[in-house]
Structures are given as structure tokens and as C-alpha cells.
């Protein structure tokens, strides 16, 4: 079912999706926010620029954006898939606890902030380009992967990740497709080159990303990767209270 977004505000778009028959294609999207918020069991393609909080509280739906997405993609999502054929704004995957967000281009600041995991839920955020500062801030679970596949990215000078990655990280893992020389991580985390077992794990984690964006997984994995994880169970001992 086709939805012409022009002149429709977000409530109207979501109402059409809730009451209609999928799959849905939203044409000419221009900043309408909260699209597909909380939705399960539907398939939505968005042509244009989706607004803030795309797929917030998503609960199983699949969203494909052909264009860039703005801030807070997948805010607090629980399950489902968000695929962006473009770049995303700040705070992508804020506090997500399940499902996956796959981004072809760059991510803004604070991607994966407060990302967590719960029982069998293990969220995945894959960024094909580079990420801004504060990547994985307060990360508590799940997996963040940044690939810096520069051939498709912009021509501006760039680093795989900006300043202060992993600040406050206390769970989960982050994989960066780089040797990470010159990147400063906080004392409470350890960054090291991946081992063979982790390379095989990455092959699984990246399978869908490579399929969707037509990358050869072996090529993607042919360069050094760094894995970052918190040091131990009680990293911030005595920082706030004596515990």
C-alpha cells in the first residue's frame, strides 16, 4: 500500500499503517517523526527523509529508509529491524534492547547510547560509515559495529569514531574496523585486536548487513578489527558510592 506523505502529519501516517494492509511504502517523506512507533508485524519502506524518533519503541516491524534518517532512530526499540540506505542523525539506537539497526552511511553523535540487553534480547547496531563522538556512551549491552567502508562515504576528512567513545560503558561489545591507533578509550574498558573466534562471530553478525548493502563479507573482514569491552563487572567502584 502506498502512502503519499506530503501534507500528512505523523499521526495520520501511523493511523494509515495501523489500519491498512501492508507492506507499506511511504513516498516523499519529509521529516514526519515517530513513524512506526511501537509497531510489530509490518513492513514499511520510506522514500525520503524520515523524521526524528523513527521506529521508537519498535516491537518487531521492519523499516527500510531509502534516504537519510534524522535523530533518535530506534529509540528504545525492543524488536525488529531498521535499515537505512543513507546516514543517520544523533543518538541512534538510544536505549534499544533488542532488534537491529543497519546503516549504510555515517552516524552522528552518541550512537548506541544506553544500549542494553535483556535475557535473550541482544540488540545490534551496524554503521557502515563512521560514527561521531560519544559512540556507545553508557553502553550496557548489545553489539555496536562501525565499519568505515570509506568508498561509499562522504569526501570529508574523517575518523572511524569521534572523541570520547565508550564513555561510561559497562556492558556489551563494540567492534571497530580499524587498528584504533590514536583513539583514546576510557580506563574502564579494554580495546584489543579481535581473535579468530571473534572474527567468526563478526561473520555472523555482519551477514545481514552485507546482504542488504551488497558487500562481500570476506572483504569486509579482511582488515584488522578492534573489539572494545568493559574490564570487569564493577568498573565504577567507588566513583559514586562506596559499593
Amino acid at each position, binding site marked *: 500500500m502506498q502512502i503519499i506523505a506530503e501534507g500528512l502529519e505523523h499521526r495520520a501516517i501511523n493511523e494509515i499503517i495501523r489500519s491498512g494492509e501492508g507492506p507499506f511504502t511511504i513516498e516523499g517523506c519529509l*521529516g514526519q517523526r515517530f513513524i512506526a512507533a511501537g509497531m510489530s508485524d509490518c513492513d514499511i519502506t520510506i522514500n525520503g*527523509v524520515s523524521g*526524528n524518533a523513527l521506529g521508537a519503541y519498535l516491537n518487531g516491524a521492519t523499516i527500510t529508509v531509502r534516504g537519510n534518517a534524522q535523530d533518535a532512530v530506534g529509540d528504545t526499540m525492543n524488536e525488529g529491524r531498521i535499515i537505512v540506505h543513507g546516514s543517520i*542523525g*544523533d543518538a541512534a539506537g538510544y536505549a534499544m534492547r533488542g532488534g537491529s539497526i543497519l546503516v549504510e552511511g555515517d552516524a552522528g*553523535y552518541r550512537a548506541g547510547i544506553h544500549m542494553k540487553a535483556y535475557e535473550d534480547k541482544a540488540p545490534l547496531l551496524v554503521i557502515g560509515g563512521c560514527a561521531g*563522538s*560519544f559512540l556507545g556512551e553508557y553502553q550496557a549491552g548489545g553489539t555496536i559495529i562501525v565499519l568505515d567502508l570509506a568508498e561509499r562515504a562522504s569526501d*570529508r576528512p574523517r575518523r572511524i569514531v569521534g572523541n570520547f567513545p565508550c564513555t561510561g560503558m559497562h556492558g556489551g561489545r563494540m567492534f571497530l574496523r580499524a587498528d584504533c591507533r590514536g583513539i583514546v578509550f576510557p580506563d574502564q574498558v579494554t580495546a584489543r585486536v579481535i581473535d579468530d573466534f571473534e572474527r567468526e562471530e563478526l561473520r555472523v553478525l555482519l551477514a545481514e548487513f552485507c546482504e542488504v548493502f551488497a558487500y562481500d563479507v570476506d572483504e569486509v573482514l579482511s582488515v584488522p578489527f578492534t573489539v572494545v569491552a568493559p574490564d570487569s563487572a564493577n568498573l565504577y567502584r567507588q566513583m559514586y558510592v562506596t559499593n
Partner: protein
Amino acid sequence: MEREGQIRIPSGCAIAAVISREGRRMSGEKIVRAMKPMHERSNGLGGGFAAYGIYPEYKELYALHLFFDSRATRKECEAFLKEYFEVAKSENIPTRKIPTITDEPIIWRYFVAPLPSVLANLQLDERELVARIVMRINAQMKGAYVFSSGKNMGTFKAVGYPEDVGVFYRLEEYRGYCWTAHGRYPTNTPGWWGGAHPFTLLDYSVVHNGEISSYDANRRFIEMFGYKCTLQTDTEVITYIMDYLLRVQGLTLEEAAHVVAAPFWSTIAAEPDPARKEELTYLRTVFPSLLVTGPFSIVLGFDGGLMALNDRLKLRSMVVAEKEDRVYVASEEAAIRTMEPEVEHVWAPAGGEPVIVQVKGGER
């Protein structure tokens, strides 16, 4: 009703801008339209625009835009203006009656030139004189407020949603080489016409999304230099900081950006270029009280250009894009694509990284 300065209410906001590097003038229609997809970032308590290059026929004169609460105040203020200026033209700013904009004050504009005798007497350059007169009216003349005071530029602002404010002021009838826009969602102060953005002094105008936590520290410092913060809004203090750094201290735009959005000491310590490291250290050391903390994204407009800047932590969104000779800035990409669907090079500048665009040939 209580006004700015009398009450604080515990901001989301929307900003947008467009500039032509070639100095080609554009009508205000597109920038007004750009605010529509960002409607939810405002709450109807303030909208405004700054436009550069709109008064070429009076480009040697200062264009003063004023709000008055009564005819008597206007008469009093005009008598005061005539003591310092030759008034070449005075008129109502044309507006449209629309149901969404109500309770408008008296809105007037004057094209003025400082009297040479006054300048000689006071031994002031004319920009300093104009700045002082604006301060004096805004701080001391009850019921009068100067909301625009530059040459060949003008600010238009009101209580309402920005897209309505643009219709109200008939902005499609003006043509400027640079436009900035703001939709307001006041969090600390009530919405009054004077409290809408842009905030201006001379040709400097600032639109701002955010809420700075260093307001009082910045205000205490800047008020030592004759500025009067009358509205308790953080944007006003940013405007005066920019005037102080750029006009009074003569800093470059980039230097001013490194004062207000100075990098962390740890970032400065890791800076590989020794000259840059020294400069950043110097600016942070000399102007520590002008470090602006807390979330902000701003567009500073000035004669011949603009500068877009985020706080160093980038706590507010800001997107920049280009198309031919034009550069666009907005809180959201959707706003930019409303103005130009086929933009190129869309990017989000890092926190504290200024984006400076100047019209070819400099000031005009």
C-alpha cells in the same frame, strides 16, 4: 502579563538558514516554508527571521526596527532618536492581519544616520554609538524595544509559529542574500515579542536552539562591558558575546567559535598541531568566562556571511548542506530539503566545529 525578566519558566527550538555565496538575493518565501516540517519543535510562543541585503536602497543607513507599547512611547522614543540621528525615513513595518498572530505591538522602522556632531562630541565610532543607543532604549525606555539595528539587514519576529510570522511580516516581498529563521519553544521565559529570536545588535543576529547553563557566568562578565541583558534569555547573551568578541575585541569568527565552544582541555592536550594547540590554550585562558556550556546550536548572521556552530558536546542537532552557490543550515535535514530537494553534500558538523560562509567579495 509577566514579561521576560520578571519570571522564569522551566527549550526545544528550530533553526534554519540559507546563504548565497554569490550574494544572489532570494525572497523570504522558502525559508518560511522550511520551518513547516519542524513545526513540532516550536510551541507557538515565538518565531522570527533575519534577512541580509534587503534594504539596498538604504544600505548606508542603520535600519532600526522597534516595538512600542503605545503611540506616546513611540513619540517619546522618536524625540530621543532625533537627538543622535538624522532620520531619513520612518514608517510602519508592513504586516498582514492573520488570525494566528494577535496582540501585536506598534511595529515601526527607521532608517537613520548618526549625526556627525554627536560622533565628534562623544568621540565614538558610529557602530559603538548605535550599539549604545540600542542598549539605552532597551534597558531604560519602558515600552520600547529595538529588535534590529544593522545596515541593509532586518529582523522580523513575533509571538506565533514561525511559518505564520513569515506570512504576518510579508517576507515573500523581501529579497536577501542570507536568511536565518527560528521557531521558539520557550522553557525559561514567557513568550513576548521581544523575546522571540533572532536576537540582534548592529548587523549581528543570533538564532539559537538550546539552553545554555553558563548564562549567569556569561552575563556577569559581558555586563562589565556595557551590555545589558534585559530579557534573561540565553540567546541575548550569546549575541552580546559575539559582538564583544568580533567587533570590540576584533577576533576572527573561528577564534570566537573557539572561545564560546572551546574544546576540552584533554582535547587541546591531544592536539597534534603545536600552533593550533597554543591558540586554543590562549583563547580558553584569556576568555574563560565566555565559554558557553550546555546545549546549543546557533546561526550567527552578520554583514556578508553567517556562522553555524554547535556546543562542544553537540547536544543539539544541526545539519548543513550545499547546492550550487547556496549553503543551507537547519536543525533537521527535512527543513533543508523543503528549501532545496536536491541538495548535495549533506553533513552534520562536529560539536564546536564552526561552519563559516562568507559572500564573495566580503561585506556588502
